[in-house]
């Protein structure tokens, strides 16, 4: 038995070395590629911009996983709901289809306020979903896999409620809701590192910055506040923490609220960049979102951002002749990463409990 332990330890050390070496080689190759290919730096920034969208989608997704160790399939629907709520809170009218055709609110909020309120409403929907689809199963001690199905059911219901109410049309926010801004920023050539001036869309910069801010806030919330500490205790061991007098259900409600809030704001921001394309708006990000949070290490909040950016940058570097294979390449890379580092990019190896 001891010999076995030793050899597996050696094996693990070898594996560790190999994977670190691999990571280093990849990083060096990437930097070289960025700087030597024409338009490489531009692609890099494109990748960050796309990755920002993936990251901001994934943040609320991964938060719930970090506490409950379950996947909330309804997150895409919450994201969509947030975008729609903001649209209506700005006082814009429903289109001509659906039960609420041509209705609008008697008031209109300024955009930033509407976005925040839309996020709060999405957060409340998150709470409702927890009460309907998650808590009953948790109370029964059912297999976590079942919550995947019940949250899927909720997602299907929400998407179709949206369509029944407001139709399938495309909704768009007013331009320049944050005041007059140029559509794109010219970042110059970075002291000659890039042959051409690098341009990037302003909304994408906003998304990137906001996702960074959300990460910092969430990290502070989890690590720096009392609630956050309690949350971590729940994540660690729900039974013990409830014995210690922590109100587990209340904390989980808070988690769902924060996740919905972040998801709703994310939906609004992404909608600002690419418009709200219909009831399936957020659902369409679900698959990539799942990839992002797994790549980042499930439940790892900074990891979700890293995962999003890595996938974004990887996609941006697919050569233009192969752009049709872009998603395939992203998932092929994901497959390989899973095999090499199943604990995620930032995660530490988890030793199988015996």
């Amino acid at each position, binding site marked *: 038995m001891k010999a076995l332990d030793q050899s597996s330890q050696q094996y693990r050390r070898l594996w560790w070395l190999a994977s670190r070496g691999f990571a280093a080689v990849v990083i060096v190759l990437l930097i070289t590629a960025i700087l030597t290919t024409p338009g490489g730096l531009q692609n890099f920034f494109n990748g960050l911009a796309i990755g920002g969208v993936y990251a901001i989608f994934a943040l609320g997704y991964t938060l719930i996983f970090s506490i409950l160790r379950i996947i909330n399939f309804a997150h895409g629907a919450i994201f969509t709901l947030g975008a729609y709520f903001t649209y209506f809170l700005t006082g814009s009218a429903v289109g001509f289809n659906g039960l609420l055709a041509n209705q609008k609110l008697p008031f209109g909020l300024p955009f930033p306020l509407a976005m925040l309120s839309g996020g709060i409403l999405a957060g409340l929907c998150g709470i409702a979903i927890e009460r309907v689809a998650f808590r009953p199963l948790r109370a029964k001690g059912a297999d976590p896999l079942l919550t995947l199905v019940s949250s*899927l*059911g909720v997602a299907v219901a929400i998407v179709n409620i949206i369509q029944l109410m407001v139709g399938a049309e495309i909704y768009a926010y007013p331009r320049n809701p944050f005041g007059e801004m140029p559509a794109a920023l010219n970042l110059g050539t970075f002291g000659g590192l890039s042959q051409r001036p690098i341009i990037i869309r302003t909304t994408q910069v906003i998304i990137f910055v906001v996702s960074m801010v959300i990460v910092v806030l969430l990290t502070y919330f989890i690590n720096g506040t009392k609630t956050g500490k309690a949350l971590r205790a729940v994540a660690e061991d729900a039974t013990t923490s409830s014995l210690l007098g922590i109100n587990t259900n209340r904390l989980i409600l808070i988690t769902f609220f924060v996740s919905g809030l972040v998801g709703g704001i994310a939906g609004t921001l992404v909608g600002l960049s690419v418009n709200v394309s219909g009831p399936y708006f957020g659902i369409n990000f679900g698959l990539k979102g799942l990839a992002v949070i797994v790549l980042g290490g499930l439940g790892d909040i900074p990891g979700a951002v890293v995962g999003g950016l890595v996938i974004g940058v990887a996609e941006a570097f697919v050569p233009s002749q192969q752009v049709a294979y872009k998603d395939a390449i992203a998932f092929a890379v994901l497959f390989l990463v*899973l095999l090499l580092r199943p604990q995620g990019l930032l995660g530490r190896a988890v030793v199988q409990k015996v």
Partner: protein
Amino acid sequence: MEGFLSTYGAAIVQMALAGVLALSMYLPLMAGQLSLASPGFYAVGGYVAALLSTKVFTGYPNGEYPIPLIVLEMGIAGVIAAFFALIVGIPALRLRGIYLALATIAFVEVLRIFALNQDELGGAVGIYNIPQPFFSATRIEYLVLALPLLVGAALFVARLERSRVGRAFVALREDELAASAMGIFPTYYKVLAFTLGAVLAGMAGALNAHILNTWNARQGTFDLAILILAYVLVGGSRTFLGPIIGAAFLVALPEIILREVAGLPGLNPVIATFLRDGRLILFGVLIAISVFFFPYGLITPSLLKSRRKKTPAEHIEPAKATPKVSGGEL
């Protein structure tokens, strides 16, 4: 009855095929592996049949395509799916729980995009005019093939459950470490379960290419994977009957709400309209509710036992508090 069959012929055949797909996901789940790869093998199977019947076995007038050739196509599709399963399964089955689920989904997605980019596979339009074995507008005749496939798959899985291999699967699901200590080689049995599932999915795809008359990259996607998972879990993941019933139930449900419940005479028109336009809302809510009321699925081993009283208790009872479906964490 004739009107019923001609209206629901295609839906009934799809219920049977959904049952086969559900079994294809149930098999790896028996061994504790949450694999979402079934749609990938299903897509492969469909393309195999579409190519064979439009490019290789040509020359048969429409409506007279020989049924044995379809069976042959299904066989070839199963073999090719098994080949894919070995390539993907051997590395991927090192992973557990959600990681395995995601790796298998990555495989499905890579296949889909690859298919979309092959001119031989018809690109976005896909392959169409797949020859038909019947002069039929109802598609109900396809039960001749779909039902034996479903029954065969069900009998096979039922036999498997009682065999040594099946018990090895269950042992792996319950406790992999203990199982391997007892001399069960985990990788072998996991890959076996995964490959058997792939064969079923590939055969279902091959048959469905004929039923749908066309095959394209929209068949076999992430959405289908999640739907099949719902079939299995709503139906029950502890006995082979569960996935079959779950699939039949969930495929039929929206159709029934749409065409029967909403059409009942004397129904308030507002409610009828809601049932028609909002049937998917109801569908979603029912899925969510059903896992609450039936956390072990609609069909459980204990339910079956209470029906046929004297069956020996060969099934492992689900644990009281936390029935485990998947091997890993989720």
